[in-house]
């Protein structure tokens, strides 16, 4: 049982939740996640830690409302409790000097990449930030990235800010730079991570993705989070969640992510007149 200190929608469908978790706040590192169970009947869902404060013993998560559990989580109130908040899980991002690091983020990934960018900046890296969103009003925490980033680019599907289109515009940004980034880190929906990896493979830029498969325990016990990386079976919760994007079997990954699509939408058919599922097509988180 962990107390919710803050819970609000920061942009449409995207929520910020601050949870009391002293043990986790002391241990968590950039790139790690927790498993949250909204209530006693709830399923266990993995969520990245976007910020934390050891002194007040809190962690902050940005989550997108996509299905039953995130919807239940969003319906809680400050001073309520979540039934489970366990972690920090997974391996941390390797924080060291790379040179120029490009951080590509969309959806909840804007939140989860923030501590990564901050720590990398701390190691003297030059940070270039790219936000990808449907429209400019879905971009949040811009102020946090301003101080960190050498340059900030945006790609919006409606063209309301920066480049018009989607992640396929990334090469335009990369080629506009004076030199190629030494490494690219991508956080966000599967489509964004897969597409970015495809693009950077041809450009030969090392690319790290933070995979988001279905999970249950998050400790290596159930094997539902398995992914094929460089031809080998890996458990994302203990071997990842970060992997070399060029080595991930994306076709398999996408198929596995959709395994429960039918059952998940049952929730909406039961409880809501119309589906709130992110309709953007490919961006099913």
């Amino acid at each position, binding site marked *: 049982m962990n107390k919710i200190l803050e819970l609000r929608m920061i942009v449409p469908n995207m929520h910020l939740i601050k949870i009391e978790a002293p043990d986790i706040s002391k241990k968590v590192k950039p790139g790690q996640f927790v498993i949250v169970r909204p209530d006693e009947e709830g399923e266990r869902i993995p969520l990245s830690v976007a910020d934390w404060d050891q002194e007040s013993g809190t962690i902050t998560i940005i989550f997108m409302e996509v299905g039953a559990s995130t919807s239940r989580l969003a319906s809680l109130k400050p001073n309520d409790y979540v039934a489970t908040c366990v972690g920090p899980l997974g391996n941390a991002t390797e924080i060291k000097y790379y040179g120029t690091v490009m951080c590509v983020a969309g959806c909840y990934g804007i939140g989860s990449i923030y501590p990564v960018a901050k720590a990398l900046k701390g190691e003297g890296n030059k940070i270039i930030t790219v936000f990808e969103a449907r429209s400019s009003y879905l971009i949040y925490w811009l102020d946090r990235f301003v101080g960190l980033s050498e340059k900030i680019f945006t790609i919006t599907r409606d063209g309301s800010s920066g480049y018009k289109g989607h992640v396929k515009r990334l090469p335009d940004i990369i080629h506009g730079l004076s030199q190629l980034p030494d490494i690219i880190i991508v956080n966000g929906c599967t489509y964004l991570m897969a597409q970015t990896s495809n693009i950077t493979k041809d450009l030969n830029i090392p690319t790290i993705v933070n995979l988001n498969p279905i999970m249950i325990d998050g400790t290596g016990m159930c094997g*539902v989070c398995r992914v094929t990386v460089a031809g080998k079976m890996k458990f994302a919760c203990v071997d990842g969640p970060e992997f070399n994007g060029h080595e991930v079997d994306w076709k398999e990954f996408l198929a596995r992510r959709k395994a429960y699509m039918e059952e998940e939408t049952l929730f909406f058919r039961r409880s809501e007149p119309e589906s709130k599922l992110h309709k953007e097509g490919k961006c099913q988180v």
Partner: protein
Amino acid sequence: MSEEKIEKTSKIDLDRTEMPKQPPEIRRHNFNEVALGYTEELAIKEAKRCLQCKKPRCKTGCPVEIDIPDFIACIVKGDFSAGIKKIKEKNCLPAVCGRVCPQETQCESKCILASKKGEIAIGRLERFLADWEAAQGKIDLPKKAKPTGKKVAVVGSGPAGITVAGDLILLGHEVTIFEALHRPGGVLTYGIPEFRLPKAIVAREVEYIKMLGVNVITDFVVGKTRSVDELLEEFDAVFIGTGAGLPWFMNIPGENLNGVYSANEYLTRMNLMQGYRFPASSTPVKKHTRVAVVGGGNVAMDAARTALRMGASEVRIIYRRSHAELPARLEESENAEEEGVIFNMLTLPIRYIGDENGWIKEIECIKMELGEPDASGRRRPIEIPNSNFIIPTDAVVCAIGNSPNPLVPSTTPGLDTTRHGTLVADPETGKTTRDRVWAGGDIVTGAATVILAMGAGRKAARSIHEYLMGK
């Protein structure tokens, strides 16, 4: 008593008292317990068959050496309260062991009447007493020793951890259990299904050690939330009972297709996450019509019988050796067979074949024959060339085994492991290669049994106590 004497005594009753069960055609559609337990009359009838041997062999078959004839004598007298006390001197989880112990290879196999196929149903009697006590609704809390001021951390709340905690709290130490999942009990909670071990029983046992004063902290992953080294700063001793929870796969093509599960995933979805109540519970489960379970142990039987209860119309066990080598308890494979599980023996899956959406649709198998006995003493299965064939299926549950989770060993310097990934620990004391750290249960032995995990917990508790008091 010798066998000769048995021959001469004509009065010996070799007729084991049957335990009532739900009929197969009914139970395969529900998650209620299959075996219904003895009534008082049936228990007394069975207890009366015991010869009260002077040198009871049965006792030597019980890893925790329960005074079997003594508790049976109490049942004969109708003094159930004394009987359960007798058991609890040695075993703190009788309701669990009476149900899931492999009695046929332990206590009961050693009973002198076993040679005449009339062994006493010791497990059923043990279960009877435990259930009787629970039904009384009042629990006698044993007296605790004076507080010693020493603190012990127990990592993992499976049978090993519960036993260590239960023993040490009575000896006056302060005990805290750290459990990674949101519900305590280990495999008893997330693995063994409701119809074989009702979760209310496990919850009762956990409640009991809490009443004794054990602090149970769930949602806490040792090695992540805090390391063993950090626990050692706060606690005088640490016991590691994290089990063998890492599922094996076979490394064959198609294993990552949708619809291919590890038994851990399948059973965890159903038990821990209450998937069998979906959509009332929110962890989704798939409705599968044809389910194939690969493996032949208790885990495989549990998965197969769960699949039946989830509404599958065709459930099969695929096992590479023959019936005789099935590692599952006889009772469980018989139950599965009665319920309609199909057994494809001497069969090995070599490839999973998917449809265009990445879902499993067929298994390519190969026929096996048995060769010479291997290191395990069982005859080694050998592939029969060109005997490949296809089994159509909607789901596969892989139940070929588990090894210890490397999380704790890999985050604890100085804790030696074997090449199987198990912790190195003294079999008599549970002492590991790290000072002030003990271990026991599946993390030391590899996947084994509830009673062995408890036995290891008991030995470790004794050693920890000696250490704490000698300090």
